[in-house]
C-alpha cells in the first residue's frame, strides 16, 4: 500500500469516527462481502426444460424487438450460416469499400465455415485468434463482427460478452453490424440468474452487457441508432431441432 493510499483511507476512517491509523481489514467484516446463497437459482437454471427455454426465447425476442435487435431462430449451424451469409451479401460496408468480416474464435462460429462460403466473392473473413497483434486493424476494417455471447438475458434482452483470448472486446463494437450467435440453452430469465452465472467468471479483465444497437437521443430526444457502436444487432438463436415445437422435452440441453 502506498503512502497516498494510507493517507487517503486514513482520512476516510477519521470521517467515520475510526482511528485513522488502524487499518480495518476485510476479514473483520464478513457480512460486508456476503452474497446470498445461489444454489436454488443455479438449480433452476440447470433444471430448465426445453419448453421452458423456448419460453425464455420468446421473451427475449419480444424484449429484443423493442430494443431493435433483429432475431433469427435457426435449427442448425448450416441454417445459421445461411443467415450470416445473407447478411454479409446484402449489407454494405459503412466505413470501407471492401467487405471484411471478423468473428470470435468460438466453435459455434467456426461451425459456420464462413471461409468456404465466399469462393467467388470479394469477402474476407477474419478470426480474432488469441494473441493476434493485428486484431484491432482487422476489426477496424470489418463491417460485420460475429460473436458468441456467453449468456443471454430474456428480461432485459441483454447479451453478456466475456472478454477472453480469441474473443476480444472490439468485435462487438467497431463493425457497423454485430451478429451474435447464441445457443438457446444459454438464455436465462433475468439479471439475477445472469449475475449468478457471472460470479465464477468475475476474474476477467473485462466484460460487457449489450442490450441492442448503439443509440443516442441527444438531439431533441430524437432516437437515432448507430451513435458510435454498431447500428444493427442481429441475434441468431441456435435451437437444435429435438425440441422444436415438441413437448417431449429432455433436460439434456441444460
Amino acid at each position, binding site marked *: 500500500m502506498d503512502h497516498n493510499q494510507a493517507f487517503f483511507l486514513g482520512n476516510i476512517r477519521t470521517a467515520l469516527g*475510526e482511528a485513522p491509523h488502524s487499518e480495518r481489514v*476485510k476479514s473483520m467484516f464478513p457480512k460486508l462481502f456476503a452474497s446470498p446463497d445461489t444454489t436454488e437459482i443455479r438449480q433452476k437454471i440447470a433444471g430448465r426444460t426445453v419448453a421452458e427455454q423456448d419460453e425464455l426465447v420468446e421473451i427475449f425476442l419480444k424484449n429484443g424487438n423493442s430494443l431493435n435487435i433483429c432475431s433469427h431462430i435457426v435449427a442448425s449451424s448450416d441454417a445459421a450460416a445461411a443467415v450470416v451469409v445473407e447478411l454479409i451479401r446484402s449489407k454494405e460496408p459503412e466505413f470501407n469499400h471492401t467487405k471484411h468480416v471478423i468473428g470470435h474464435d468460438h466453435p459455434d462460429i467456426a461451425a459456420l465455415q464462413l471461409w468456404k462460403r465466399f469462393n467467388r466473392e470479394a469477402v474476407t473473413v477474419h478470426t480474432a485468434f488469441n494473441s493476434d497483434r493485428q486484431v484491432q486493424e482487422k476489426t477496424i476494417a470489418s463491417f460485420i463482427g460475429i460473436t458468441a455471447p456467453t449468456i443471454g438475458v430474456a428480461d432485459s434482452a441483454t447479451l453478456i460478452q466475456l472478454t477472453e483470448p480469441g474473443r476480444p472486446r472490439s468485435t462487438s463494437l467497431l463493425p457497423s453490424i454485430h451478429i451474435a450467435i447464441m445457443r438457446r440453452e444459454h438464455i436465462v430469465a433475468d*439479471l439475477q440468474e445472469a449475475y449468478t452465472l457471472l460470479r465464477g467468471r468475475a476474474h476477467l479483465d473485462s466484460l*460487457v452487457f449489450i442490450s441492442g444497437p448503439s443509440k443516442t*437521443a*441527444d438531439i431533441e430526444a430524437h432516437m*437515432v441508432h448507430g451513435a*458510435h457502436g454498431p447500428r444493427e444487432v442481429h441475434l441468431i438463436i441456435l435451437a437444435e431441432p429435438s425440441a422444436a415445437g415438441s413437448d417431449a422435452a429432455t433436460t439434456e440441453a441444460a
Partner: protein
Amino acid sequence: MNDYSKEAQKALASPRLQASLHTLQDRFGKGAMALWANMEDQEMRRRVKKSRLKNLEHLDILLAELARNVRARGGKVYFAETAQDAIDYTLKVARDNKVKRVVKGKSMISMEIGIDPALEEDGIEVVETDLGEYIIQLAGDKPSHIIAPCIHMDRKQIGQLFAEKLGMDYTDDPPTLTMAARKELREKLLSADMGLTGCNLACAETGHISLVSNEGNIRMATTMPPVHVALMGMERIVATLEEHRETVQLLTRGAALQKLSTYVSFTGGPSSADDPDGPKEFHLVIIDNGRAKILADPEFREVLACIRCGACLNICPVYGRIGGHAYNSSYCGPIGAVITPLLDGINKHADLCKGETLCGACKDICPVQIDLPRMLAALRQKLAYASDRWDTRQHNPAEAYGFTIWRLIITRKPLYRSLLKIGRLFQRVFIKKNNMISSMAGIASGWTDGRDLPPIAKKTFTELWEEKYRNRQAAAAPETEENQ
C-alpha cells in the same frame, strides 16, 4: 440581482428551452415515477439505499479491496485527495505516454476537478465523445443536464453548429447530424492516445469499474487508446456483484427508464499479451476532493449515496423552469443544489441552497430515496447561523435580524395582535378596487411584482372568534345543530 436569478430569467425567456424541459420532464420524470409505482419488487429501492449507506460506513475497506483486485490484474490505482492531485497524476500519465489526443467518455467528475483545461494547457487535444457533450464542446457551451447535456439546444442550432464547425451542408435532421458526428468521432476515437472516463459504479469484490452508455463511445474510449484513465468519485462503489446488479438497474431506470442501458461495461485492468485488444495501461484514480468532509457529517453523509442518475432533475419544478445553467456547477438540479455547496462552498453557492421550494418531488423520484429537501434545509441552517465545520459565514445578517424580530413577535401574543392592527391601518393606502394589494416596496415587491396580495382582513379569525363563536361554543353541541 444574483447570477442564479439572472440565469434563471434567461432560461425563462427562452420558449425553446421551456419546451424541451417540458418534454423531458413529462417523459422521464413521470416515466420514472410510474416505473417505481409499478415495480414488482417494491423493496428494491430501500434495499439499495441501505446497502449504499452501509458501504459508505465501510468505504475504507471497500476501496482497499477494489485497489487490491485492480492491481492484481496489472492495473494502477492512485488515490487523489484533491482535484489537483488527480490532475497532476493524470497529466503525468499523459506525459509519460507522450499523449497528444485524449478521448473522453461523459464524466461529471472530470468537470468537477477541471481536468480538460489542464490537459489542454499541456498541448493535449481533448475530445468529448458523447454526442451531447461533443455538441457542447463544439459550441463552447456548458452542459445543462446530467444525462442530456445539450437539452438546451434545438436541432436547428446544432445543424448550424455542425455546418460551421464540421464544414458539412446545413441540415437539421437528427439522424444525418448523428451520422456526421459518428464519422468525425470515430476518427478521433481510433487515433487517440488516451481514453479518459468516469466510473458509474465500481465493484470491490471483483475489482471492476463499470460504465453505462447507450452510444458505445465509452466502450471505444476504454478499448482503443493504449492508455485508459478512469476517474472515480470515492463513493461510487458497491461491495459485491449482487449489490451491483440492483444498483445499476436503479441507475439506468432512474436515468432513462431503461432496464439496462445499451452497454454496461466492466473493466478491471489492462489487456494482456494473449488478448491484445484493449489498453496497455489502465489507471484508476480514486478521488476525494471534499467527499471525506461530507462523509464525516452525519447530516450530509446521505448525499454520498447518490448514484447520479439525474432523475431528480427530471421532476424538479425549479429545474424544469430554469434548466441547468443557472446552477453554475458541474452538478445541476436538486442533487446539484446540495452537492455543489458541500463540495465548493456553502456561501459561494448560497442561492443554490435557497433557490428551491422544498416541495419534495426529488426525494420521491430518487431511486435511492435521498432526502435532498432535508439537506437543503440543513444547508440553509448553516447560512442562517454560520458554521465553523463548514467554514460558512452568516449569509444575510438582515434576514437573520428579521427572523429574530419575528421570533420576538410571534412568541408574544399581545404584541403580535397589536402589530396586526397597525398593519391593517397602514395597508389601506395600498388596497386597490379589487380588494388586493398590488404593489409593495422593498423585499415585499418580490411578491407584488408578479402577484397580488390579499390584505389583512377587516377582522381576523381571532377577532371573529371573540365576537361570534366563543360564547356560542359555550353552549352544547346539539343545540348548535338546532340553530342551523
